[in-house]
């Protein structure tokens, strides 16, 4: 087993990784930028080194500095977490060169499966159906017609150089194709100087369901069930759950076996995720592979009882997977909310700054993977993920009830967060009935979901009283300034202690 692992990341995932190391009795070496000197992952580490200024290009993305720290601290392994350099084969290669084990797949497997086109080709080899269509530019309208026929309508035309919806056209029937082809081509030409188009089957209200795979270096490969991540805002997952509410044993084993087959073809080892879109008829289409630990790995941990990070470390150290596919058992249901420093009331604009006060949820079934603490200033330089709130229950209803309850306890003061959005989602009938698809949240937000304020006059009364107390303490501070008469003996009590009304009908004798 390793002696010391370099945690080449920050925030909640760095905290998660160093907890795994501590459990295993392995030294965990943290790195930090100038903005992160007192970040939680540094506070909880047993060893920590500065690697540069705040911008990640000068710190967390600097492979040379990571290697210097690894050498200085005597690390024999490195865990990249997710984001930053996690899917960069150059880091894995640098590790190999410096005699440091990279905890993840080989750089070759990362390259094979990490690129969208490469992975699609491998999927074809493995007999795994990708979203029908082609990622290659289409030469002509005639070719487009043939490809659309093959994929089946509706299809969507997309600009090869595109993004942001420009040069994109939804085509429902063959009759619309020629007009759409023309329009999309000229729009793409104007927007990107590149009129080339490609074509994909348009899935109506698809669900995002992904399979966690795990392989050791001895040729064993398993799948650890699925996660449904259909609640997304602008293609960014915000809620994940396991199992998927639409899954049954047969579909799970078909999708799991497809994912394992693809990973095998790619020569994959360690933890990886194969993402699929699933349509209303429960056909599944391969999307892409994430060649790393996922943000949402905790929901799989909760239902399988496995610790994926410790498993990653063991597998990277050359140990065989300690179980077979048949041993993987799921119990209960788990959900995760990604708590971001962003302002839902202001177009989800990021909201860094000092966390003035925090009340964090806890109790049965609640796990909080946090990267921040009250009193810390969330820096301006990184991803706004503050914490992941995870709820486990014996079934989906119980998990959702626990999440709703935990969201009611959770308070973060001083910065804006998306907590209120989650509170509303967890009261939405669509969500509670699991009638979800990847555009559900965007559509709901577009209908002004967060604009409608709940009318709660009692809460307003409470606010008014609090403001009165605040006003009183402001006044008494002023009154206690030098030059005034001495405050009465009970002055401090007056300010901070209970201001109570002991009315007759209160239960007291």
């Amino acid at each position, binding site marked *: 087993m390793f002696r010391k692992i370099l945690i080449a990341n920050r925030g909640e995932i760095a905290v998660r990784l160093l907890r795994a190391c501590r459990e295993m009795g392995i030294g965990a070496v943290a790195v930090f930028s100038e903005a992160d000197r007192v970040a939680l992952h540094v506070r909880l580490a047993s060893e920590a080194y500065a690697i540069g200024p705040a911008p990640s290009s000068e710190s967390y993305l600097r492979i040379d500095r990571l290697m210097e720290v690894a050498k200085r601290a005597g690390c024999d392994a490195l865990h990249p977490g997710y984001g930053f350099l996690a899917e960069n084969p150059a880091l894995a290669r640098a590790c190999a060169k410096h005699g440091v084990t990279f905890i993840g797949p080989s750089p070759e497997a990362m390259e094979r499966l990490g690129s969208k086109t490469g992975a699609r080709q491998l999927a074809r080899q493995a007999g795994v159906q990708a979203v029908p269509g082609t990622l290659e530019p289409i030469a002509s309208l005639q070719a487009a017609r043939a490809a659309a026929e093959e994929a089946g309508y509706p299809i969507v035309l997309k600009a090869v150089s595109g993004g942001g919806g420009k040069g994109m056209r939804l085509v429902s029937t063959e009759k619309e194709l020629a007009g759409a082809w023309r329009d999309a081509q000229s729009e793409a030409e104007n927007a990107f100087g590149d009129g080339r188009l490609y074509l994909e089957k348009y899935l109506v209200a698809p669900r995002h369901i992904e399979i966690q795979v795990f392989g050791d270096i001895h040729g064993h490969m398993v799948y650890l069930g699925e996660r449904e991540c259909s609640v997304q805002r602008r293609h960014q997952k915000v809620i994940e759950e396991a199992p998927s509410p639409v899954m049954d044993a047969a579909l799970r084993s078909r999708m799991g076996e497809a994912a394992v087959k693809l990973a095998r073809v790619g020569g994959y080892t360690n933890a990886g995720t194969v993402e699929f879109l699933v349509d209303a008829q429960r056909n599944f289409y391969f999307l892409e592979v994430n060649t790393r630990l996922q943000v949402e790995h905790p929901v799989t941990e909760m239902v399988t009882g496995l610790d994926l990070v410790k498993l990653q470390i063991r597998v990277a150290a050359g140990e065989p997977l300690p179980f077979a596919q048949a041993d993987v058992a799921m119990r209960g249901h788990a959900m995760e909310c990604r708590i971001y420093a962003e302002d839902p009331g202001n177009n989800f*604009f990021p909201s860094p700054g000092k966390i003035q006060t925090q009340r964090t949820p806890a109790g049965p079934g609640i796990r909080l993977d946090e990267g921040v603490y009250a009193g810390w200033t969330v820096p301006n330089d990184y991803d706004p993920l503050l914490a992941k709130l995870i709820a486990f229950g014996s079934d989906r209803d119980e998990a959702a009830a626990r999440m709703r309850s935990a969201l009611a306890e959770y308070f973060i003061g001083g910065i804006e967060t998306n907590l209120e959005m989650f*509170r509303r989602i967890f009261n939405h009938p669509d969500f509670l009935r699991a009638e979800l698809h990847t555009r559900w949240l965007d559509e709901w937000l577009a209908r002004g979901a967060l604009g409608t304020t709940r009318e709660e006059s009692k809460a307003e009364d409470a606010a008014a009283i*609090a403001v009165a107390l605040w006003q009183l303490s402001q006044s008494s501070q002023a009154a206690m300034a030098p030059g005034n008469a001495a405050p009465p003996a009970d002055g401090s009590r007056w300010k901070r202690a209970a201001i109570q009304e002991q009315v007759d009908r209160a239960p007291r004798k």
Partner: protein
Amino acid sequence: METSSNSGAGGPRSPEIKNGLKLKLKIGEKTREVEMVREGEIARWRLDGRAVEVNAIEIAAGTYSILLEGQAFEVHLAQEAGGLRAEVSAGEGVQTVRVKLVDPRAWQGRHGHTVEVEGRLQILAPMPGKIVRVLVKQGDAVSAGQGIAVIEAMKMQNEVRSRKTGIIERVMVAEGKTVNAGEVVAVVV
């Protein structure tokens, strides 16, 4: 401001401060009146003239526990431009209530959170970040809604806009500078 505390800082401690306060607030479109009278150990509260049973205490700076006829609320107060923002947690969730003191000038004058004073509008940074572009210069005419500067935070950019039509009296920031939320970006007259 029609409150006993209005005797002002530096003046003698008025008997009203010792015995209670009366405060006019604006919440949404409604004007609310809060009154508290102290009798010995006991505080008696009235909301809009109606007697209510209140047990209220400050738990930490800016955090209050309010028991209102038995119902429990936790209120977190933060000052923001033009008033106070109250995050009210009840058992079932959290609600944001924006409270303005009815005579904001008196209050703002005391706490330095001026927004518009004598026709001068201070444009405040809505969030901390780095100024990546300044879109106006001193003497420029601006219309309401026009962009003043672009702030970048957490890899996203956002425009700060003027809320009135007028002339830029002063630009307080420079490109590349970091600002805190509430910091003055420019003054429009």
